[in-house]
């Protein structure tokens, strides 16, 4: 059961091969068995999951279930879930039980999904290795000495280890796509505004986007159809029609123009990863797509641009965690200043503090123009690069990450090297574009991801391309042996 995709499980439930309760119990059992090894979960909601599963079984019997009726899902722990702990991987929200559901959570629940728990993550989604979590690092199911990537590391590890078929994640600079690549699964970051941010604890508001982590592009299409669409509670959510993403998957790659970015194959990319990505491009070409070499002249500036914009926004977004109304509050504050300094000092981890300080600095009087304003201008240039490219091609394909999974602890002392892990993914966030990572083979036994980026609201195109690629290959059916 646990090896099946959402699609397979839906069919099994429909045929009556098993009930939602049986499925839920089986997966809760796997979470129980492997949870400690992977540290993928911060909270497991077994009790409420079984209640939801029973309701789903009843609904199925009555013929009233939604499109995800009885299907298991887990949420990254920065989606607010009513009555359930929502920590964001931080000590400062260690006791925070959300009084409301995020729109994504609500829509999934309305569609009948059964929530099994909340997944571990880098603190406030700030990290690329899941090592900044207050609740300890998540391990990579392919090799538990390695990082699964981040920040949606718990979601990726849980799906890769077949503990659950699907998870939500959020992607601010690559936090869905990079861990998906490093754990050999599918990670979809939709267009900025495609999915509501309401109830998603903000890291960098102009970059954050909710998405999904699954094992097949088809499952990602199924979930996106449920999550996407206008939400009046999020002013930046787009009033753009939601197509039938599953129906769109059948579109062949024949005739598809795929842009290959010259700058993506520079020296930063590991040679064996490059080989796997080139082989997957060749496979798409064999299937009738044409490869077009393109330039993104400003893309090299994306990492520094991101590390001005994202910290600036986070420094402001995280001001609300002040010990006054919710979350961690220091003991016996002497005065207001002491309350702020100690509550925040004790509550936030080192990486979050680093980014708050960076962000405060770049917004300060006298530095704003040189950093924040300049970064916004470069962001425009990067967007324009993509716009120009999409006049020539339908999708842009390349590596998701420069290397395969790295060892836990390997990069923690060197933030710059850690930041460079997102070098291929950040561009899509700065330009607000949809991107997907699909497994495209192995280098030294570790998964490699192929990234497809499309124009705004072209999720159909990248999902179809990813799905067609998965019809040509079976990388996505391979799982880590220890979690078979």
């Amino acid at each position, binding site marked *: 059961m646990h090896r099946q995709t959402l699609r397979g499980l839906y069919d099994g439930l429909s045929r009556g091969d098993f009930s939602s309760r049986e499925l839920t119990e089986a997966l809760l059992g796997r979470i129980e068995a492997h949870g400690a090894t992977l540290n993928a979960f911060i909270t497991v909601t077994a009790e409420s999951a079984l209640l939801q599963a029973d309701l789903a079984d009843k609904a199925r019997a009555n013929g009233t279930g939604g499109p995800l009726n009885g299907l298991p899902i887990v949420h990254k722990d*920065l*989606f*607010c879930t009513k009555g359930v702990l*929502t920590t*964001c991987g931080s000590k400062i*929200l260690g006791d*925070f039980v*959300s*009084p*409301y559901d*995020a729109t994504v959570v609500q829509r999934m629940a309305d569609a009948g999904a059964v929530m099994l728990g909340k997944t571990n993550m880098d603190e406030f989604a700030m990290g690329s290795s899941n090592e900044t979590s207050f609740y300890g690092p998540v391990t990579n199911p392919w090799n538990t000495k390695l990082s699964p990537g981040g920040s949606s590391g718990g979601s990726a590890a849980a799906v890769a280890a077949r503990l659950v078929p699907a998870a939500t994640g959020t992607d601010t600079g690559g936090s869905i796509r990079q861990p998906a690549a490093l754990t050999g699964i599918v990670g979809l970051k939709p267009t900025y505004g495609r999915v509501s*941010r*309401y*109830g*998603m*604890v*903000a890291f*960098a*508001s*102009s970059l954050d986007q909710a998405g999904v982590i699954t094992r097949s592009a088809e499952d990602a299409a199924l979930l996106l159809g449920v999550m996407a669409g206008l939400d*009046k*509670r*999020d*002013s*930046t959510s787009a009033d753009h029609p939601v197509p039938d993403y599953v129906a769109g998957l059948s579109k062949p790659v024949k005739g598809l123009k795929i842009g290959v970015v010259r700058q993506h194959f520079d020296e930063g990319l590991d040679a064996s990863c490059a080989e796997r990505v080139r082989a997957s491009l060749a496979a798409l070409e064999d299937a009738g797509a044409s490869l077009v070499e393109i330039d993104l002249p400003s893309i090299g500036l994306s990492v520094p641009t991101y590390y001005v914009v994202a910290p*600036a*926004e986070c*420094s*402001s977004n*995280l*001001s*609300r*965690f*002040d010990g*006054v*109304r*919710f979350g961690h509050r220091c003991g016996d504050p002497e005065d*207001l200043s002491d309350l*702020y300094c100690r509550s925040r000092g004790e509550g936030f981890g080192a990486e979050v503090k680093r980014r708050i300080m960076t962000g*405060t600095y770049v*917004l*300060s*009087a006298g530095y*704003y123009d040189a950093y*924040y304003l300049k970064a916004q201008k470069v962001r425009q240039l990067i967007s324009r690069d993509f716009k120009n490219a999409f006049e020539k091609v339908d999708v842009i394909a390349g590596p998701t990450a420069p290397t395969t999974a790295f060892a836990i602890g390997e990069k923690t002392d060197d933030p710059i090297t850690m930041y460079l892990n997102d070098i291929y993914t950040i561009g899509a966030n700065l330009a607000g574009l949809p991107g997907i990572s699909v497994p495209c083979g192995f280098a030294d036994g570790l998964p490699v991801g192929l990234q497809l980026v499309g124009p705004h609201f072209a999720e159909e195109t990248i999902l179809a391309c990813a799905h067609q690629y998965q019809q040509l290959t079976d990388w996505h059916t391979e799982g880590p042996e220890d979690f078979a």
Partner: protein
Amino acid sequence: MSGNWEVVIGLEIHCQLATKSKIFSGASTAYGADPNSQACLVDLGYPGVLPVLNAEVVRMATKFGLAVNASIAPRSIFARKNYFYPDLPKGYQISQYELPIVEGGELFIHGDDGNEKRIGITRAHLEEDAGKSVHEGFGDSTGIDLNRAGTPLLEIVSEPDLRSAKEAVAYMKKIHSIVRYLEISDGNMQEGSFRCDANVSVRPRGQTKLGTRAELKNLNSFRFVEKAINFEIERQIELIEDGGEVVQETRLYDSDKDETRSMRSKEEANDYRYFPDPDLLPVEIDESFVEAVRQTLPELPDVKQARFVEQYDLKAADAEILTGSRALSDYFEKLAAATDAKPQVAANWVIGDLSALLNKEGLEIQESRIDADALAGLVNRINDNTISGKIAKEVFDAMWSDGGSADDIIEAKGLKQITDTSAIEAIVDAVIAANPGQAADYRGGKDKLLGFFVGQVMKETGGKANPGQVNKLLKEKLG
């Protein structure tokens, strides 16, 4: 003492917009509810919540902009003003910074020299209010009430065109009257719906460079604005004349002691790290929207004042008073329409006796115990000589305290004027007969004694004799 000094003042008026719900959430803006009962998750700054702009505030700001002849920005943006304070839940206030919704307006006041004076309005921008810290009743702790958090404000910033506390008050009153005419604010100063910060500096007369300014925070009555500014002017002049220097700082006015006190200096001032709020889209306003709002503009005080002078032949000063609020002008127009007397006579009643009673009891014109129609009934009885002006005041007092129409009171109390000449004549004869000495003196040239005789006759008739007739008869009989 300020003879050698020129005072320069600019005001930042915070005007609460009269929306039902808050600027970025659906919570109610009603005043006086239990603490934190009107603060939803958005107002409380909970993790994950997002602001959604209340479209009504855009319409209201546009209305204000048009009323002060300003330009309405086709695109304005919300920015975050970052600072920590317990009653600021998000750790930032959503405001407008670089691109406000209203820019470059003006209005006219009576300047100190008595002439009409133009006061420039630099800008008006939308922002959310913070909550309230309550320091009493919590021991060593502070209570936080976030009902007010997220209440929509329009901050109206003037040019430094004001030259005295009096001009500042005149300007503030004018803005107060405009926002109430436009019905975009209740202007209630006790509840904090209308308050201002004053930037005050002085410079030697003739100097073009501005002096160092102090900002006086949170002045919530016209009287305090005047007193605080005057105190501050004197303080600055004294300081400089004693060889000191004004420092740029924020000061608080203490109304109990009638003085201003330093709150924080420029060095201690926050760096607010403004940047565009990524959670909100730019506000885009097109011409057709502006035109549609323009159609809803009421007649504004200046225009109405000119019309009152023209149409009702009122004294300019009286027209200004009567157009001070929309409700007062409506009252007057209703009264004027219902009476045959000259409008100026009707105006005198409103400005004089009626206003005095309203002020005494702290009532608004809408709460007057004598409505416009009832007052018209009284004025009409004076006009048709049923009662004298003096008796009218008695009737007016009775109407105010007991209610009822002028006619009923006149009838019930028998206050109808005596206009029967033979009846008056008999009394005049009797009075002259009873005061032979005074009659002789009058005839001997003491004209002033006529008043004495009039008084005696009125006394005999209980004030009901027609004064014109009494005068006429006395002159005949004593002549």
